[in-house]
């Protein structure tokens, strides 16, 4: 078991190096002039200044040397302090957002986490429940309906679904709202009245015992949650259904029935737990995916998370920002994949022995 964890941990630096190399490689496709934006806030006007920046940050040095500089930064010849460096959290400066990229991360990532938090349960529960029901009642109406749903669901593009939701639930009746918070809430947040314990709006609202803010936060999240969930429901219905069908065919299920156990017990205690194994792997991936920044959903609903930040920067071709956010996302994903793999090894003993 420990062996597996150690081996898995050793992969992390390898993955990080690989990811950073890829991102860095993309960065190198730009010329030195654009890349100077990585290091300076105001874009210098004349050539001499630009050349100075290029020399100072080694922007025309060979690939590997630049990779090193990008990771570790350079030493300021005058003050002796370190300047720049991905490993030290300096992801550069975003010209489109007018702030350091790391600040973008600090402001936006908690919102993405907030959304992910509330999406997990709805996303997993409905699909699985429907899949089990469909398998148990094979070929009856609910099964056919579930299968139709799974086909349509996986074909429906997320942004179209999102737009439809906006059309039906917002444009007309205004039950649910896009964005993150209503104006009156943001006033409270910015004035500091709402104490930020976790920087997650919904949790902070609860911790501050402000249920009105809490409701407002949820109201803004309902549509994104629905959008993120429905496509997962479609996939989970299909996978759960086939996994459940396969499990129900197994001999030990027939034995359980022959022993005289009630059908309910057979399904809930014998078949379902075993059928769930492939679902658990998928669930891990889905949750990890939520953290990676759900670009499209956040953009459709104007939700200020990491995904939207990346989309906004990309649309304006702010490559530096975009790459900085990519590094951040990549690192988060590597870490969360590790956590999921380890948890999975606890659950399924076969994995450890592989």
């Amino acid at each position, binding site marked *: 078991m420990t062996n597996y964890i150690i081996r898995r941990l050793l*992969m992390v630096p*390898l*993955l990080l190096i*690989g*990811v950073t190399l*890829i991102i860095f490689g*993309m*960065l190198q*496709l*730009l010329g030195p002039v*654009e890349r100077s934006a990585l290091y300076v806030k105001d874009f210098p006007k004349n050539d001499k200044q630009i050349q100075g920046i290029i020399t100072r940050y080694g922007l025309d040095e060979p690939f590997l040397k630049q990779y090193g500089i990008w990771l570790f930064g350079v030493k300021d010849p005058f003050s002796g302090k370190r300047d720049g460096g991905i490993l030290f959290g300096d992801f550069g400066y975003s010209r489109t957002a007018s702030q350091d990229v790391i600040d973008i991360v600090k402001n936006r990532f908690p919102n993405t986490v907030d959304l992910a938090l509330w999406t997990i349960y709805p996303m997993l529960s409905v699909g699985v429940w429907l899949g089990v029901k469909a398998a148990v009642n094979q070929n009856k109406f609910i099964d056919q309906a579930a299968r139709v749903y799974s*086909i*349509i669901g*996986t*074909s*429906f*593009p*997320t*942004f*179209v679904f999102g*737009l*439809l939701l*906006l*059309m*039906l639930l*917002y*444009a*007309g009746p205004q039950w649910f709202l*896009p964005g993150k918070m209503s104006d009156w809430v943001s006033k409270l947040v910015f004035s500091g009245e709402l104490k930020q314990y976790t920087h997650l709006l919904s949790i902070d609202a609860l911790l501050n015992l402000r249920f009105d803010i809490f409701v407002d936060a949820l109201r803004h999240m309902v549509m994104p949650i629905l959008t993120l969930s429905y496509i997962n429901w479609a996939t989970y219905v299909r996978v759960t259904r086939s996994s459940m069908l*396969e499990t129900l065919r197994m001999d030990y299920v027939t034995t359980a029935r022959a022993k005289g156990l009630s059908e309910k017990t057979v399904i809930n205690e014998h078949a379902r737990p075993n059928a769930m194994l492939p679902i658990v792997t998928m669930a891990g991936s889905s949750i990890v*995916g939520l953290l*990676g*920044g759900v*670009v*499209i959903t956040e*953009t*459709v609903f*104007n939700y200020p998370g990491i*995904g939207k930040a*990346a*989309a906004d*920067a*990309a*649309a304006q*071709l*702010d*490559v530096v920002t*975009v*790459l900085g*956010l*990519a590094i951040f*996302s*990549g690192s988060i*994903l*590597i870490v969360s*994949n590790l956590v999921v793999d380890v948890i999975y090894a606890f659950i399924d003993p076969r994995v450890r022995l592989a």
Partner: protein
Amino acid sequence: MTEQSEMIPTGDNRMLDEVHSDRKITWLEKALGTENYRIVKGLLKTPASVVGFILILIFVLIAIFAPVIMPPVDKDPYKMPRDGYSGEPKAPGAVWTRKVPDVPFWYEPLTGKTEMTHVLGTTQGQYDILYGIVWGTRTAFKTGLLVVAVTVTVGVVLGSIAAYYGGWVDNIIMRITDIFMTLPYIMMALIFSAVLTPILGRSLWPPLIAMISFGWMGYARVIRSDILSIKERDFVLAAKVSGVKKNRILFKHVLPNAIFPTLVLASLGIGDVVLGFAALSFLGIGTDVGYADWGQILSFARNWITNLDRYWYIVVFPGLTLTLFVMGWNLVGDAMRDILDPRMRGKS
């Protein structure tokens, strides 16, 4: 002569009446190979996949006959014609005044009018939605087929090399695949697209290249695991014993038997690629504003969020088209997956 054993096999050498099938093999089966023939037959029997095929066929026809269905107005048919420059979208049925195309053959019988109108309405900037949908079909096929063809090729080549040569080659290729798979697809496609646009200019190429770069991994993995399992099968060993050279074994024995799951993935992949491309267009990456592409049309809806109930047609028509397109491919792909799944075989 020493004692015989208790079990004496018959000394009779005549061949007993063994059962073999007198099934007629059609030329089609000979051409496709038995496995593939079975799959095609299965697909034609499943109602879901038949529906899928019909959908795909409809779209193919639309793509082929685009110039006849909605005659182009501009030199570049992919530029959606603009009826003026007003910012307010017009509802379906509004009269078409500027840059009017020739009246297509189906127009009068279907609508009963002689003057051209915007059958499905316009977006802001007065781009005709129907035109965009019709010509967008061509865009969808172009991009979908291209990306799938390239990613499958890249994936199969890499996966085959990894599986067949093994050792450190396998290790390196698989680590690279792992690294690429860790990264979130849409975000990376977005990012790479954004990086490439200043270099290649605003065209289809940045998003296409971006999607190809991050879309090959699934195929590499699948073909690799299939090859690894087929490599050990008896008929492959028999070919080795028969003196067949290594390369020929790979191409004649291993690959043809291993390629099928990959093709299933590929057929589903077209739907996903078109979805992805539409998503990128929706976000503003890739095609120019006004290019005939479904995602592009949908991106106009972003400006009218508060009034979407009034301008519903900007969302519904292209959205429906996109959904049906993807659904067609998904239906066929799903049916194929069911047929190939050995556990389902007993059921047909």
